[in-house]
């Protein structure tokens, strides 16, 4: 939403000053040129801007900035058991970009970082190289690159997904999942569909999108993008996650399935996953500080089996059961993950 007098998103680029005088300077200049009118602010380290105790999420989110940095230390991490591994024993993730353009109320990133500003890491090639090395060590690698971001939402400006696609196109031992809520498949349209990439669309019922997924494209736009990807020959996954037991949830989720049935997507999809809202206690505590206005975050007071915080009560259980059953009616059981 545009507000009078408010600076537009990415009005400022915070750039690690080392990068300005290194081999990365060319790439940094290219990026700065892409955001032509942005003010460039040098920073010593990206954490100076993203890990400040004094940053207030709800204010900064109104005019988010872009931070350009180099990722140091470990570049690929083992995934948490909280996420389904889709049958892959070597389940890892990378963070080519940190934080998300969207403003979903339930997002765990609000608990991970004190600032909603996006961080783009210039050393994508190093991360890609590390993924190849790790796949060689392990035999195969299943890698999620869009857990802590929505790469496709920023594809037009940053082109991260395309860089990874081309970097890993000839490395079939690495399978990559790119999760998104965007309607921006068009940004990838010119690429030949790779066999080792899965575009995973998170879909929610329209009332859930309107209430809890601020800034994201609506259901119809996401569906259109998903269909375009399938038509272009890409592998695509459906993610119904998190499921929210909102008011009248049986009708709300029934309507979602009705709409998905109309599209006749089920055969073409790679697979589907679903899950409840869940968050580690420490992250939830931080997220509540970032979003003290969120009824959703304050409502999650029950601890589930794995020690994660979620909603209590029977509605959530019934919703999970309902969605699982409906998915299994439409897809083979071994293609439905939770």
């Amino acid at each position, binding site marked *: 939403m545009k507000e009078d007098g408010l*600076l537009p998103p990415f009005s400022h680029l915070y750039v690690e000053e080392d990068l300005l005088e290194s081999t990365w300077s060319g790439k940094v200049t290219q990026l700065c040129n892409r955001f032509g009118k942005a003010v460039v602010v*040098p*920073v*010593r380290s990206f954490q100076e801007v993203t890990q400040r105790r004094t940053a207030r999420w709800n*204010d*900064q989110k109104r005019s988010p900035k872009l931070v350009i940095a180099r990722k140091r230390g470990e570049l690929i991490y083992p995934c948490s058991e909280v996420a389904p591994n889709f049958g892959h024993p070597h389940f890892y993730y990378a963070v080519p970009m940190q934080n998300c353009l969207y403003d979903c109320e339930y997002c765990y990133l609000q608990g991970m970082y004190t600032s909603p500003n996006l961080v783009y890491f210039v050393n994508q090639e190093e991360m890609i190289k590390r993924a190849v090395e790790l796949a060689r060590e392990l035999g195969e690698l299943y890698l999620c690159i869009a857990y802590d971001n929505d790469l496709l939402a920023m594809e037009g400006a940053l082109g991260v997904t395309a860089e990874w696609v081309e970097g890993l196109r000839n490395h079939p031992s690495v399978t990559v999942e790119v999760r998104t809520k965007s309607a921006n498949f068009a940004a990838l349209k010119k690429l030949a569909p790779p066999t080792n990439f899965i575009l995973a669309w998170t879909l929610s019922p329209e009332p859930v999108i309107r209430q809890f997924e601020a800034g994201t494209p609506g259901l119809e736009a996401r569906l259109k993008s998903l269909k375009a990807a399938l038509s272009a020959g890409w592998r695509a996954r459906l993610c119904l996650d998190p499921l929210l*037991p909102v008011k009248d949830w049986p009708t709300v989720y029934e309507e979602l399935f009705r709409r998905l049935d109309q599209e006749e997507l089920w055969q073409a999809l790679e697979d589907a996953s679903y899950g409840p809202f869940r968050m580690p206690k420490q992250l939830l505590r931080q997220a509540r500080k970032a979003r003290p206005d969120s009824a959703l975050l304050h409502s999650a007071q029950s601890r589930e089996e794995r020690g994660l915080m979620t909603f209590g*009560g029977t509605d*959530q259980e019934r919703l999970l059961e309902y969605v699982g059953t409906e998915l299994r009616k439409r897809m083979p059981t071994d293609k439905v993950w939770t």
Partner: protein
Amino acid sequence: MAEIILFCAHRREAEPFLQLLNLDRVIEDQVLMGYTDQHGECALFLTGQGPLRAAAAVASVLALYPSDQTRVIGNFGTAGAFPDGPPVGQAVLINRVQDQASGSSYYPDRLLLSPWPETTCLTLHRAGHQPESMEAVVDMELAGIASAATLFVSSSQLVFGKLVSDHLGSEPPDWKEMFAAITEPYSLACKEFVELLRAQRELLVGNPRHRRIERAVERTQNAMKLLGERFTVTQSRQLEIALKALSLSTEEEQWARALSSLEELLAGSPTISKPQRAELFDRLLGSLQASGSFSGRGPA
């Protein structure tokens, strides 16, 4: 109380603000020189020279004010620039404050449009110190102000500006000549800076999320009073979160109904023993969660 608090190093830098903001009352009970308007909505304090003194001054002032997430803290004053930098008389907004001595940096959030160019402000601890960066304007207070202010407020509450008063060179400037040359642009810049401070305040006040939080906090605090001291700290904390969740998701009527059933449960359950207290806690929490958006409702 005090929607805007402004800090200036010297009386001379503060003068235009005293007139623009009608700061005609001297704050008597402060160690520092301070001024306020008739309603106490704006205040200005003089920090004196040097970042350590400025930090002490800002901390001592802000410690006396109750917390307010929409209060704006400003600094405006003169700064030096390199000859290749902004011209004398140019007003600039500060997007990075760097303390040359410690290397620490502070980043006030830039949220609002402004026609002023932006730059870093490098704070030196002594006159005559050589600045390490040429991409900055140079002052002697701002890092101290920013360092102290960030102990009390968020980076979105900070607005810093400078007017270039002289170009750094081998010879110190003639102060009288310098002030004479910038009097007019300085006054004009102060006027624009006041508008920016007010706009920032409006932006923070106008954030719908802040308004929702304020209402929820007030409702929750009132409801917590009903609970008294019946529960353990952990139980109270859980009930407080549940009350806040409910408060954030309900309109007046539903909230009133929830409170009423809360009162009924409390009235009908005198808590004496630990098991009774635990039972009452479970019932209350269940009742609150059942009234919220993400309820524990049983089968329909």
